[in-house]
């Protein structure tokens, strides 16, 4: 595989670049020499069968793999031109720029308000109580949740429905005002209606944020993303414009996957 990243057809400049990334869990190699560009203000979908390493790769972007003791990341990942694995980079600051939404909605067992306010509080983003309230309300509005919860912000976040909880997690990530939001199969536990709401939300969010989403569902990737990267067995098989990947893939493995023959 060539070490140069495939240049996206849309011509958007990449906000994040990965070059020759290898990830190991102990002795087992989970990601093998992956290079990928993440274009700014677009949605990039990482697809592939279970265990192909797409979630592992996603977690490299905000160094969530640091929390797994046996996990080692090699290679070069740059965010806005800065190598994020440089020892000088503070992972706390990095994660405030690159938010994350997880597969299973994981609101804190606190009130809806406190869930969203937690990020701004620990990063001291608000100047006053009113300002904090402002941030919370704006974030909830951006996540399309405000109208549903405006009268019960002090109720526990865990009392919401699954789809609402996931949007609460999105609001919580937005509240810190990140540039990139990483989403790890955010809809895999949701029903089709809740999924549609979140997909709509992602579409409106891409004007302000860059989104990288890992998904099992090829239809979802086709619906929401502009860029798609197909992973198989720890390798990046093919990446590029979503339309092209789904209509006219270059590689046979990609063709087999999107037509349902592997995976």
């Amino acid at each position, binding site marked *: 595989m060539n070490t140069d990243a495939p240049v996206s057809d849309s011509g958007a400049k990449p906000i994040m670049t990965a070059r020759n990334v290898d990830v190991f869990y102990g002795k087992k190699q989970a990601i093998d020499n992956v290079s990928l560009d993440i274009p700014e203000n677009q949605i990039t979908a990482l697809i592939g069968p279970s265990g192909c390493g797409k979630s592992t790769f996603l977690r490299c972007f905000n160094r969530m793999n640091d929390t797994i003791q046996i996990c080692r990341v090699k290679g070069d990942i740059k965010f806005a031109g800065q190598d994020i694995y440089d020892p000088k980079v503070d992972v706390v600051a990095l994660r*405030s720029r690159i938010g994350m939404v997880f597969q299973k909605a*994981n609101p804190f067992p606190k009130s809806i308000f406190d869930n969203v306010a937690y990020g701004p509080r620990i990063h001291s983003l608000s100047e006053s109580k009113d300002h904090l309230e402002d941030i919370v309300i704006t974030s909830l509005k951006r996540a399309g949740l405000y109208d549903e919860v405006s009268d019960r912000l002090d109720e526990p976040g865990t009392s919401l429905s699954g789809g609402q909880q996931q949007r609460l*997690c999105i609001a919580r990530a937005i509240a*810190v005002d990140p540039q990139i939001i990483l989403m790890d199969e955010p809809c895999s536990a949701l029903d089709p209606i809740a999924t549609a709401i979140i997909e709509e939300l992602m579409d409106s969010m891409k004007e302000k944020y860059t989104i990288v989403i890992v998904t099992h569902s090829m239809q979802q990737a086709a619906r929401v993303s502009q860029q798609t990267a197909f992973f198989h067995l720890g390798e990046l098989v093919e990446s590029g414009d979503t339309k092209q990947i789904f209509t006219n893939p270059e590689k046979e493995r990609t063709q087999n996957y999107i037509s349902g023959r592997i995976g």
Partner: protein
Amino acid sequence: MPDYLLTTSPQMAKRHARHKRFQWYGRIAIAISISFMLFMFTAIFFRGIGAFQKTMVAVDVQFTEANLDPSGNRNSSDLLRANYKPILLQGLQQVVPEATSRQDRNRLYGLLSNGAAFDLGERVSNKPAMVGTSERVWVAASSEVDLYVKGKIDPVEIPEELRRLKDQDIAWVEALREKGQIKKKFNTAFFTNGDSREPEMAGILSAAIGSFFSLLICFLIAFPLGILTAVYLEEYAKKSRFTDIIEVNINNLAAVPSIVFGLLGLAIFLNFFGLPRSTPLVGGMVLALMTLPTIIIASRSILRSIPQATRDAALGLGASKTQTTFHHVVPLAMPGMLTGTILGMARALGETAPLLMIGMVAFIVDVPKGVTDVATALPVQIFLWADSPEKGFVELTSAAIMVLLVFLVLMNVFAVYLRRKLERRW
């Protein structure tokens, strides 16, 4: 209907039989355990219930100045030290005038508790105006009389030579009883006194306070140390051979017999550091050593049960490790860690052996006022009383066990309450 669908079909009948048999094994096991528990509790209850009552004897005492205060200055310490035996004896002789020989007088006086004279002295010294008057006072009966009045000595069954209370003593007691000069009242002394050589004067207050101070010290040491150790090992420490060794050692320490911790305390706290012997301070430190592994193990398993998703959520927002731990993980784990601590403390409350080793086994009359006062503890007090030859201590032993059990039940109820109150769902 086809045969194989019926419960009576051979295969099904066999399965059902196995199912039923297993259920019955379980029920029988529970029934046996419950009957043991009931047996233990009823035995303790019926033995100990008597100790909550105490026999009192009314004596018409003439507080003559010549006997109590020959100098006439009503000095309260002189009044306390005066000899009350003659006037108490005179009062008894009003009922039993025939007891005039030296031996008979001693026997008659022996119906009263040895503490009766001292008790009277305290009353008079608190109220010197009593001198010169005559009054009917109620004083404690001796332990033997107490047992007789409660029906625990049967003069018909036990031959006279085996009894401390002779037939003549019993006749005198009956004479007093006929005149309404014997009654039973609630034994407040049991809750307000320290230990005593006389069963009728002995109480558990000093032991209870000693236990309280020991547990206080134990909590102050074991809770923060245990929680911080658990948090560090579970949340911060990288898994390595070293942490594995620590883990194995903590698990082993939890299984070490408690008397070993007592020996350790004796060697280190008393002999090396020279801390005061027989005090709740050292007792609490030894109990803390013993409780620490329990608290650490319980807290670690609670921390491990906090879902990783909670940590991920905070870390993903850019919270630092410490923020994640103390804003989210520890608050969620706190109810469980408190419960583990209280259960560990309940075990410490019932612990005797390590306290014996550091000398909290002394005969303590005074109620300790601080952690460096000489003290004993409830289980040790039970041990001491159970070891006493006087029959009167049998009741006291069971009564003290009841008090200890009440404290243990209260602590466990409190642990359950805390868990219910603080628990948050996630």
